[in-house]
C-alpha cells in the first residue's frame, strides 16, 4: 500500500511516447508544452476504493480481533460447578465466538427445542386432521346428524335482508331514523292521497 505511488513513474518509463506526439504547441509560449499522458482515472479510482475499504473495513476488524485475542484472551476449560447451569455462550472458547453466541446467533439448545416443538405440533395437527376425516366419514355413512356433515353456504345479503325485515317489522324508531324519509313509491302504482 505504501509503494502504490511508485507505479505511475514506472509506467511512464515504459510507455515513452516520442517527442513529436508528446509536445503539442498551442497558443502558449514556445517554452510551455502540453504533455500527453496516459489516463489517471482508473488508478485514482482503484486507490480511492482500496483506501476506503481498507480504512472502513480492515482497520476496525483488525483492531477488534487484536483486542479480543491479546487483551481478552481465550477461555480455559473447566468443570461445571455444582448447582450452576452455564449460560449458552459459556460453552465456547474464543471471545468473539462467545460474543456471537450471546448476541447474534440462536442458541444451540433453543434450536433443538424449537425443532422438537415443531415436530410435536405437526403430530398434533395430523392427529386432529385424522379425527376430522374419521368424523366426516362416519357422518356420511350414518347420516343421522346434520351438524358436522352439513356444509352451510354463507349468504351475507340474505342475512342482511332478514335483519332489515325484522327491523322494519319492529317499527321505525326515532333513534334509528334516517335523515329524511324515503320518497313515496311511484311504481307500479302510486299511493292514494285522499
Amino acid at each position, binding site marked *: 500500500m505504501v509503494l502504490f505511488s511508485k507505479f505511475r513513474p514506472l509506467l511512464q518509463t515504459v510507455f515513452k511516447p516520442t517527442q513529436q506526439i508528446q509536445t503539442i504547441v498551442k497558443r502558449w509560449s514556445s517554452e510551455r508544452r502540453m504533455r500527453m499522458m496516459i489516463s489517471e482515472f482508473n488508478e485514482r479510482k482503484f486507490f480511492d476504493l482500496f483506501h476506503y475499504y481498507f480504512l472502513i473495513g480492515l482497520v476496525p476488524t483488525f483492531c477488534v480481533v487484536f483486542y479480543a485475542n491479546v*487483551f481478552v484472551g481465550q477461555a*480455559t476449560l*473447566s468443570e*461445571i460447578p455444582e448447582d450452576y447451569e452455564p449460560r449458552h455462550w459459556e*460453552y465456547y472458547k474464543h471471545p468473539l465466538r462467545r460474543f456471537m453466541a450471546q448476541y447474534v446467533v440462536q442458541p444451540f439448545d433453543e434450536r433443538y427445542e424449537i425443532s422438537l416443538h415443531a*415436530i410435536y405440533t405437526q403430530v398434533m395437527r395430523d392427529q386432529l386432521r385424522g379425527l376430522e376425516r374419521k368424523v366426516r366419514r362416519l357422518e356420511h355413512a350414518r347420516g343421522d346428524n346434520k351438524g358436522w356433515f352439513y356444509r352451510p353456504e354463507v349468504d351475507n345479503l340474505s342475512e342482511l335482508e332478514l335483519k332489515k325485515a325484522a327491523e322494519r317489522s319492529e317499527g321505525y324508531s326515532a333513534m334509528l331514523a334516517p335523515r329524511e324519509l324515503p320518497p313515496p313509491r311511484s311504481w307500479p302504482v302510486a299511493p292514494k292521497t285522499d
Partner: protein
Amino acid sequence: MPEPSPMEHVYGLSKWSDVGYSAIDTLYLRPVRWFHRNIVERLRGPSYPYYHRKFGPVKTIDQCEIQDQTCFYEAEMTYLREKRIDTMVVEILHDRLTRCIAHEGRIDALDKCIKEKDALFESHTNWYQKYGEMGVPHSCVDAYMKQKHLMIWMRQHPEVDLKGWAIERDYEQKTKDYIKSIPMPMEIR
C-alpha cells in the same frame, strides 16, 4: 489429549532440516514467543472459564413408543452425536499412529508402533461394525437393525473371527519377512 502439541525439533539429524528449522525459528517462532511473553501476558485480562456441553440421558430407539416422533428425533440426534464422537476418536488414533511412524521411521515403526496400530485397528473395526456400509443417508433405525442382524449372524456363525486379528498378524509377519528377504548390507539395515 484433545489438542495435540507440535513436535519438537531434533537438532543434528540433518543439515538442511536444521537450516530450515532455524529459519522458521528466527522469522516466526521467536518473534511470536517474544510478543506473547512480553506484551500479551502483561496486558491480558482475567481468565474466565468455558465448559463442555453435557447431554442428558434420553430414550434410544428401542425404548421409544410407536409413532412417537419427538422420541425418534431425540434418539436420532443422540445417534449422530455418538457417531461424530466415534469418528473423532478414530481420527485421533490414526493421527497418533502417523506421528509414531514419523518419529521412528517407516521400518522401526513395525516394531515400535504396535500399540498404536492395534488401537487404530480395533477402533476402526468397531466403527465399521457399528456405522459402516449402511448407505447414505441412513437413520438410527437402520443402525439398530444392523446391530440386530449382526448379533443374529454371530449367534449362527460363532466360529468366524469378525475383527480379523489373525489376518492382521499374518500381514505384519509377511511384511517383516519381505523386508528381511531383501538383500542389503548390514550397515544400512
